[in-house]
């Protein structure tokens, strides 16, 4: 009786799990196959070389990355507060954080206009005091993407924080470390895989963002037209071009996500 691979339970995988798993996989992959089959492969090169495509791709990558940075800066502390601070009403706060998940993105865009637009609650003040107007700008694109993507990061980091071993933090505290030092030197390294996974999710969500972006930031090539917006408008007149654009977006995101996964979360 020799022992088998430690991480593989004995016996065949049960069909009651395998069958739905395969169905789920086919359901997710079939639409992708549809895109690949219908793609105009012969004209792919010339379509890709169009400056508008590259411009939209660049804008998408830059704005999704900036949005992820903003999500990390504000989302990680927010997750920490949700996981570690005990105050009445925390449940309500947690529910509020997840609002952008259930809000249709277009509504999110309108909400952003009502808050940060020229006539918005805070936007009016921003314009009067600093002359800053966010709609129709690249900054507006980044904000719209941040709004929609942040919950993904917060939820994933909060989950990691709750699963982390509190005794390590307590041990650091008994050794005289301040709370900030503990957060920086103990907590953050502990939840790093959760942060990385959240950031990847967040980036992917930001990259594909459409509704909030077009509603809040509008659509102008080079300034606010990201790839999903370019895809939507191409679909109006030239579905083939739309397929090409979608494939580019897909290919780029798959490459980036695969690379990041190995580097950041390779251990987990």
């Amino acid at each position: 009786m020799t022992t088998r691979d430690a991480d593989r339970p004995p016996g065949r995988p049960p069909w009651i799990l395998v069958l739905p798993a395969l169905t789920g996989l086919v359901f997710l992959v079939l639409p992708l196959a549809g895109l690949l089959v219908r793609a105009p492969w012969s004209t792919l090169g010339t379509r890709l070389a169009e400056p508008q495509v590259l411009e939209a791709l660049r804008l998408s990558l830059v704005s999704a990355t900036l949005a992820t940075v903003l999500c990390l800066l504000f989302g990680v502390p927010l997750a920490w507060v949700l996981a570690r601070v005990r105050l009445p009403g925390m449940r309500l706060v947690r529910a509020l954080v997840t609002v952008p998940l259930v809000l249709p993105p277009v509504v999110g865009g309108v909400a952003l206009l009502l808050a940060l637009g020229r006539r918005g609650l805070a936007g009016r003040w921003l314009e009067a005091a600093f002359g800053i107007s966010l709609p129709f700008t690249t900054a507006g694109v980044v904000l719209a993407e941040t709004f929609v993507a942040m919950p993904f990061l917060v939820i994933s980091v909060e989950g990691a924080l709750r699963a982390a071993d509190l005794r390590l933090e307590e041990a650091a505290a008994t050794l005289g470390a301040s709370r900030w030092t503990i957060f920086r030197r103990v907590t953050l390294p502990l939840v790093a895989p959760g942060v990385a996974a959240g950031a990847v999710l967040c980036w992917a969500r930001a990259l594909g963002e459409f509704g909030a972006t077009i509603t809040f930031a509008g659509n102008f090539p080079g300034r606010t037209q990201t790839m999903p917006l370019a895809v939507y408008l191409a679909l109006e007149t030239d579905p083939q071009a739309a397929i090409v654009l979608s494939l580019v977006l897909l290919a780029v995101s798959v490459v980036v996500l695969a690379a990041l996964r190995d580097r950041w979360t390779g251990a987990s």
Partner: protein
Amino acid sequence: MKRMMAAAAAVLTLAAAGCGDTGGKRDGGGGAKTLTVFAAASLTESFTALGRSFEGTHPGVKVRFNFGGSSALAQQITQGAPADVFAAASPATMKTVTDGGAASGQPQVFAKNRLVIAVPPQDPGKVAKLADLARPGLKVVLCAEQVPCGAAAEKALAAAGVRVKPASQEQDVKAVLTKVRLGEADAGLVYRTDAKAAAAQVKGIEFAESAKAVNDYPIAALAKAPQPALARQFVGLVLSGQGRTALTGAGFESP
């Protein structure tokens, strides 16, 4: 895989068409029938009213509308969506349907729409004529050139020799209207019917050059209509005097 997709398509078709095949002989009789009309978003108000009157004169018939962007509707039709009637906001989108052989007979123009300048009620940008849209610092939103309202805007501006640097090229005319409504844009070009439907929140300013970019709205019964007879009757209603009254009431012009 092909068989699975065919089965899925069949299920969807059945679900969408309802019990379209039952009671085929009883035209307008007691059997439950559904007439499916795909129509441009700008027709929402007028066609909903016409649909109700059609149901009144055809007991047992239910009229279902799918309002949306003309190009998206045209694509759904050419991809096999079960529809009886298609009313488009531009001849170009209707052409993609007729070219694909999906229309039955020649499409007929039933209405015309023209552009107006939409501004917030207080008119913060002090816009009075088309040339004002070129003023630097004024926030103007237009439709993207890929959608009919954008093509019309481009034509009107070119005819007037006015060069506008838009803050945004929106995905459809309702999005332009939203930006003006919320005061984010100082002005936008929308159809007269849209300005009329939102009269409480935007002011529509007519301009002479809009005559150069009048949009024709064609309608056609579809070749694969589940209810061909009802489809023809509905097209007849839209082209009738009653249809004309409903359309002009919404701000359309007669062809």
